[in-house]
């Protein structure tokens, strides 16, 4: 049996503020799905450091409409390329704290190779094509020495300054996506 025009639908993509349950998502991929023996999931989380900075959280902005359209197109391409069953992509937006889940990609297939490859492919292209932008909250420490003439006492204070900065896109992500062509 050959596959006929594999398509992806909006049901397979969710852009949401609220957290998701890995167990619930796996259950949905497996429910009434006796044909697929493999379930591959990827979960991305907020790290506490980036480029040597101490990160305290981040805010995710996106382009509503284009985000969904882009991810649906990536899923459709994955379905043309591999023999996969069900796909689910979740991406969170808004304010997120350290350790929180940001992104989920789940793929099922009859045998593991297709689900492994398709999952990585979807994640690699999501990173370089889907219009999301991360703004990090980072803490920088400044050592400042204050002296007062009257008391002749030096007080060294360790000041923590929290700033927000937009992340720069990484060449390594673009290079990784290009390995699929």
């Amino acid at each position, binding site marked *: 049996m050959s596959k006929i025009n594999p398509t992806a639908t909006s049901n397979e993509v969710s852009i949401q503020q609220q957290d998701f349950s890995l167990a619930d998502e796996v259950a949905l991929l497996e429910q009434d799905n006796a044909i697929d023996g493999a379930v591959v999931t990827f979960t991305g989380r907020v790290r506490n450091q980036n480029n040597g900075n101490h990160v305290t959280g981040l805010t995710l902005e996106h*382009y509503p409409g284009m985000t969904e359209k882009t991810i649906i197109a990536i899923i459709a391409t994955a379905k043309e390329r591999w023999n996969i069953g069900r796909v689910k992509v979740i991406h969170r937006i808004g304010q997120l704290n350290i350790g929180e889940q940001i992104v989920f990609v789940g793929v099922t297939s009859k045998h593991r190779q297709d689900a492994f490859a398709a999952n990585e492919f979807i994640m690699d292209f999501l990173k370089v094509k889907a219009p999301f932008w991360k703004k990090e909250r980072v803490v920088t420490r400044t050592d400042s020495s204050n002296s007062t003439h009257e008391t002749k006492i030096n007080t060294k204070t360790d000041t923590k300054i929290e700033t927000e900065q937009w992340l720069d896109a*990484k060449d390594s992500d673009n290079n990784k996506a290009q390995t699929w062509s």
Partner: protein
Amino acid sequence: MIKVVFFAALREQLQCSELSLPTDNIKTINDVKNQLINKGEQWQSALANTSLLAAVNHDMVDSNTAVKSGDEVAFFPPVTGG
């Protein structure tokens, strides 16, 4: 009219998330950009960033792509999701 939207760092630099432009003299993405650059120094410097990406009606395009009345044009920095 053409609707133009901006995101992330670019939106903050321009202090503008969206605006409308009359279609007179606008045929391509480049024409849209040139009209915006004429809005002042802040626009000129923010839009000079060569890494900026553009989309028309939610599809990524290059600067020579044609635009017409009713289109939604977007400008934004390279994406950093996932």
